[in-house]
């Protein structure tokens, strides 16, 4: 099992004729994902890597039964693409792009939720359910199937962290990049709820940062009596206040944004807090141990 994405998911790629769209479609196919359609207005009837291309998402859904979308279009057009995918029946839509205005992220998120679906992103590598399917451009070799649900605000960190888990024999049910922006299609609390409900997930690894409030949502969960064990790694301990560390949301504006404040909250809630990337595997192992109890 997994969250949101599995081997039955039928993926349509918006912007498939673009450079990144074509690359990602090929890469997802290679991972065994059912990439059933591409969309590129005006290019309906052609194909990319053997994948049929349609002029609209509705046409793609009608012809192929696509139920999952990934949107590779530039920020000024992104909302249009996501709305089209959501309202054409895709229950899961990933928008990996960065540089998206927060306003657009809000609208995307709200549109997906209004249809009972989910948007993943922006500014995220997407979502992978190892051994089943991937929706995004994370490096496939970092992952293997297993009992750990991974949630990450950072793409780069999730790759390396997942590889370390994999190399330690700790496979993943799903790994979701919730993204580095302030408003997320799936936020930490929601990702956790999804993993909580996934029977294949025994423990949760949360990779967080300074800035924003997601880590407090993780702490809220961790202190629940019925919570699955949570291991966390937060980065940005040494980031100076008031300076944006790459991600739009990685900014210390007040004490609540700091590494210290978040770690205190997580530890008080009973989460296993890895103090460094090197300590993450042990923390994850400890979380799994607790779940077995």
């Amino acid at each position: 099992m997994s969250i949101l994405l599995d081997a039955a998911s039928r993926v349509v790629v918006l912007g498939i004729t673009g450079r990144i769209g074509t690359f990602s479609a090929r890469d997802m196919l290679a991972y065994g994902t059912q990439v059933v359609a591409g969309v590129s207005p005006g290019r309906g009837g052609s194909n990319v890597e053997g994948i049929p291309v349609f002029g609209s998402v509705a046409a793609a859904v009608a012809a192929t039964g696509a139920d999952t979308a990934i949107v590779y279009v530039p920020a000024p057009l992104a909302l249009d693409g996501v709305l089209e995918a959501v309202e054409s029946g895709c229950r899961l839509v990933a928008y990996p792009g960065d540089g998206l205005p927060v306003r657009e992220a809000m609208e995307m998120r709200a549109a997906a939720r209004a249809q009972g679906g989910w948007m993943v992103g922006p500014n995220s590598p997407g979502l992978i359910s190892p051994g089943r399917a991937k929706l995004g451009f994370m490096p496939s070799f970092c992952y293997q199937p297993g009992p750990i649900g991974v949630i990450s605000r950072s793409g780069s960190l999730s790759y390396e962290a997942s590889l370390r888990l994999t190399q330690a024999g700790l496979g993943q049910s799903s790994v979701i990049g919730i993204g580095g922006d302030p408003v997320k299609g799936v936020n930490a609390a929601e990702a956790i709820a999804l993993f909580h409900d996934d029977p294949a997930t025994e423990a949760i690894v949360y990779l967080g940062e300074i800035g924003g409030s997601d880590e407090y949502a993780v702490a809220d969960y961790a202190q629940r009596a019925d919570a699955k064990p949570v291991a966390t790694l937060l980065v940005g301990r040494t980031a100076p206040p008031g300076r944006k560390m790459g991600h739009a949301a990685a900014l210390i504006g007040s004490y609540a944004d700091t590494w210290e404040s978040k770690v205190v909250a997580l530890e008080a809630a009973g989460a296993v807090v890895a103090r460094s990337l090197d300590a993450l595997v042990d923390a994850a192992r400890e979380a799994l141990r607790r779940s077995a109890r």
Partner: protein
Amino acid sequence: MLLNEARGKRLLAAAGIAVPVGIEITTPAAVAGARFAFPVAVKAQVASGGRGLAGGVRRCNSEAEVSEAAAAILSTRFSGLLPSTVLVEPWLAIARELYLSVVIDGRAGGFVVLYAPKGGVDIETGPKPLAYPVGLARNFRAHVFRALLESVEHDRKLLEQIVALARRLLRLAEAADCTTIEINPLAVLADGSLTAADAKIVRDDAAAWRHADIATALEQARAAETEDVRRCLDANLMLVWLEGEVGLLSGGAGMTMAAMDAIEAAGGHAACFLDCSGNPTPAGFGLALELLDSNPTVRSILVSMFGGGLQMDRVARTLIELLRNRSSTKPLVLRLDGTRGDVATTLLADAGFANHRALGPAVSEAVRLAQETTP
């Protein structure tokens, strides 16, 4: 893009929100000829908290005092930053100070309205403001916010003004792509009306393509950056100079922070946050290395890349070429891992460069080398 107070107030005024009518000046001489109704406030325009406690807001009763205060403020650093201008505006007779803001919160999936009945400089240390999670601006409901306010605010006329102002701020935030509009203090004047005595507004840089004013402000901000930072922005590298001695060149925001933290854990300090993932080419790496080599506070360099989409053998080839032509003798530690990391190691070894696959040992070595070369 944080707007200074004067710009923030202009944006509020354009949306029909009451602010003191002030003038912004860049030199003490500009005071001459301006007509003030004394007393006035002379306020440092600087992106830094704690301005008031540091002498950045002065009350003046004459043109001479204004000129003097402006001169003093313009030559004072606030948290290290010189004010670009001073704002001169009527000194408000404030009956009460409130706090009202509209900010982005991921848990709300959008905007949250925050209100505290006691605003002013102590807001961080006082009780937590009331929070109304709104999400999309159009989901604001006056009666919901009103019900929330009724628990703390018993002046009905004031309460209704706050409700109306909150709607106004949300609409402005949406229309102008603001991620923060904080009014602290929101001043209650003697006649019971509300005025924004200060304004902290953050515009969304990502929306510059639909707001010429954001685009212009970003261009100005870029022009005001140091040449290093400007060159990085032009090359799509993300550079923030820090105070340490280990020059860190990394890929991805999360991994760069993780490496910074690891350097600290190993007893060192990162000299920078430098994310090359936006431009992992000879030009990008070349610029990054040049900046680290030429900065004397950087005592050693750690290049740490983890390849996801990026193939490490390509990075290795790029780095070999750059390192062969490098004149600096500053110690440099390589750590390339991930996609085709094995090939990268072989290529580097063949070229005479050691590669760490693991982050920990690479960090330790970089920290050690920095300490050894520090006089």
